[in-house]
């Protein structure tokens, strides 16, 4: 009976929404009270005279399961790891947005997937615990084995996958040797980013695989300047988050309006302290203070989705076999 009551309560709640409804699938962190979702909803609804409804949870797996009958109009929060599969599904339509305002460190010409924020993989450390952080990726490999690292599993985490591609991009065919040198320093591998970062803040590890933007949270929200990203001259792997419009949307005008809204200054200004990432279309002087003082890499490494798809299995296998020794 309880279940029926729940269902009934919910049905009445959804029936009340107007016909001008835009349904957006988004990751959980995006729509939570600390994420940018609530403010973006408020700003967009003020200009569209519609009802924006977030649907948090899995993105691509859910859409692939639902197929053409998905009720999503737009999906936001996809990664480059899944764009190839998403594109081949034929479920997404061109975004039609002018890409000129983009301020990414790489060229972006994709007609389907529209970037809204980015960052780079980086090892983050605490200056009070690591006095001499490695100055390069090569130096990290040679660092003493009592430097404790925690990373994420490339088979269950996007940042973990970005790391194996990063190692592959820096060390090429010698990726496996690089992993063998890193292996003794890796305390453990976690399922996702949150667990790793928790271990790092609890003092279980000296450095954590995270993002170049992580220190900004500590600076802005906690007034703590002791967290830093170690910047390597070999370059850092580029991680971008994307939005896309569903081809089968029953509300194409509204979806287009939302896609255009993504690169607007209103939207972009919500990103830095909402999603703790760098806005994809906002000049640096408009970033919050804490972001402007971040150490960012000069060189950015990135594989196109086809290159990444070709390298992925091999890169994961190099990681797996080196760490399984």
């Amino acid at each position, binding site marked *: 009976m309880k279940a029926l009551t729940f269902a009934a309560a919910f049905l009445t709640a959804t029936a009340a929404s107007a016909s001008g409804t835009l349904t957006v699938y988004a990751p959980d962190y995006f729509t939570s009270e600390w994420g940018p979702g609530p403010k973006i909803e408020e700003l967009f609804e003020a200009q569209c005279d519609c009802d924006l409804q977030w649907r948090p949870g899995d993105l691509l797996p859910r859409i692939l399961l639902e197929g053409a009958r998905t009720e999503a109009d737009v999906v936001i929060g996809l990664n480059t790891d899944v764009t190839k599969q998403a594109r081949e599904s034929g479920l997404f339509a061109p975004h039609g947005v002018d890409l000129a305002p983009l301020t990414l460190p790489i060229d972006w010409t994709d007609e389907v997937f529209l970037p809204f924020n980015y960052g780079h993989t980086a090892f983050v450390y605490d200056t009070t615990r690591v006095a001499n952080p490695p100055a390069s990726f090569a130096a990290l490999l040679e660092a003493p084995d009592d430097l404790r690292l925690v990373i994420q599993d490339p088979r269950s985490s996007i940042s973990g996958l970005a790391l194996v591609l990063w190692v592959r991009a820096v060390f090429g065919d010698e990726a496996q040797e690089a992993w063998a040198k890193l292996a003794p320093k890796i305390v453990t591998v976690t399922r996702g980013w949150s667990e790793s970062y928790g271990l790092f803040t609890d003092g279980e590890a000296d450095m954590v695989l995270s993002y170049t933007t992580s220190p900004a949270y500590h600076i802005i929200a906690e007034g703590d300047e002791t967290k830093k990203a170690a910047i390597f001259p070999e370059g850092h792997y580029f991680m971008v988050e994307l939005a896309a419009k569903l081809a089968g949307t029953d509300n194409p005008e509204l979806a287009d309006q939302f896609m255009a809204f993504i690169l607007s200054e209103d939207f972009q200004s919500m990103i830095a302290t909402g999603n703790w990432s760098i806005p994809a279309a906002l000049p640096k002087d408009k970033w919050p203070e804490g972001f402007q003082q971040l150490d960012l890499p000069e060189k950015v490494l990135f594989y196109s989705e086809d290159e990444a798809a070709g390298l992925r299995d091999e890169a994961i296998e190099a990681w797996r076999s080196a*760490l399984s020794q």
Partner: protein
Amino acid sequence: MAQRTVAVIAATALAALTLGPVAAVLVRAEGLAALGPGDWQALRFTVCQALLSALFACILAVPVARALARRRFAGRGFLIALLGAPFILPVIVAVMGLLAVFGQNGLLNGALSALGLPRLDIYGLHGVVLAHVFFNLPLATRILLQGWLAIPAERLRLAASLGLTPRARFMVLEAPLILRLLPGAFAVIFVICLTSFAVALTLGGGPRATTVELAIYQAVRFDFDLGRAAALALMQLALGLGAGLVAWRLAQGAGFGAGLDRALPLTVAHGRACDTAWLVAAAGFLLLPLGLVVWRGLPGLAQLGPQTWAAAGHSVLLALASTALCLSWTLALAGARGALWSLMAIAISPLVLGTGLFLMLRPFVNPFSMALPVTALVNALMALPFALRIVAPEVEAIRADYGRLRATLRLTPMAWLRLVLLPRLRRPLGFAGGLVAALAMGDLGVIALFADPERATLPLQVYRLMGAYRMEAAAGAALLLLVLSFGLFWAFDRGGRAGAAA
């Protein structure tokens, strides 16, 4: 007979809810896909760690349960309840508590380095087993303790008046009890550890510690290879059922027969020091990490926003709904082989279950609107094996002991339920209800596919806080989760024991 019909319906629902989703995934995937070499490595590790974990948890549970059964001291009831806490703890919270004790910066390593001894490294197979023993020792202990407490006082008096030596007493009364209950406990723990994922990965130290569940996660969430996911899920299911069958074969044996429900006279004079040592050790091992979760969570409590409190409310409602559902299901299924078949419910990969249910429901309803009912149902399903494990042996014993009485008096099914079964099941039902409610509180289950946009659950909220860098608030929310899970468990368990002399 009505009772039989109910049992058949309950069993059909169980089979439909476990095998149905796998079938739905298989149909969608258009067949099974082949497994890679990494999958076989994962299978070996999974079985190995699950065997070791179940073995240690069961062996250690014997002296602990025995000490609890035969000692009386102030706060015993509270200690028994508290010792159950690790089992109902959400994984993410438990791992943090364990690391606060055994981790690099933990209490243990702090003490070791203060003494000038080398540090211990928790990460590896031993870390995985340690964590699983931490989770499951309470379960094994409680299963055994229930058995111990079910020994009728008359048998103990008889043993005392015959002047049995401690050894003889053990052989005559306790050993048969252990042999009857332990295989079941072993099987349940083995199956729980089979589907372990986050614990194994975090404490396992890397890809050596890959479990089948991780491979399924990768197949579903990353590769969208449903054929491989289904193949892995079936393998996991076969292993779980295999373990259940073996345990069921081993666990045959009669109970102790009926008694007059008199209060136990026992406190045994011998072995006091030994029992005390076991109790102190178990309490230290199980409660220290919990204490640290509480300690670390206190500062974060003040930072919890309205969304977190609302999530806590949803989780409690969800837990109560799951409990009502699960206990009805348990009573309906408590026949001879319900416990065995219900192992399917925990051997099935939650991810495949979620995906399958999504595929099954999708053509008929909007999965978003079904989020809470589906979550309540899945939680009830996942907790069913535990509830059955606790309740079914008691039902069987009651049937064996009072069946003749029932036949003689020609009790109607309702009268049997009301006058004999339910009053006698009060303690196990209370315990089972507490367990189900607490497990439902902590479960993330199928949330990823059936996320309710308006109503998050508390465990999800902990992850959200962590994902938003709010580690301190996450620790506070984790503490809230711990308190609520334990509170529900305590309330049910207490209700079940009210009026009982023990």
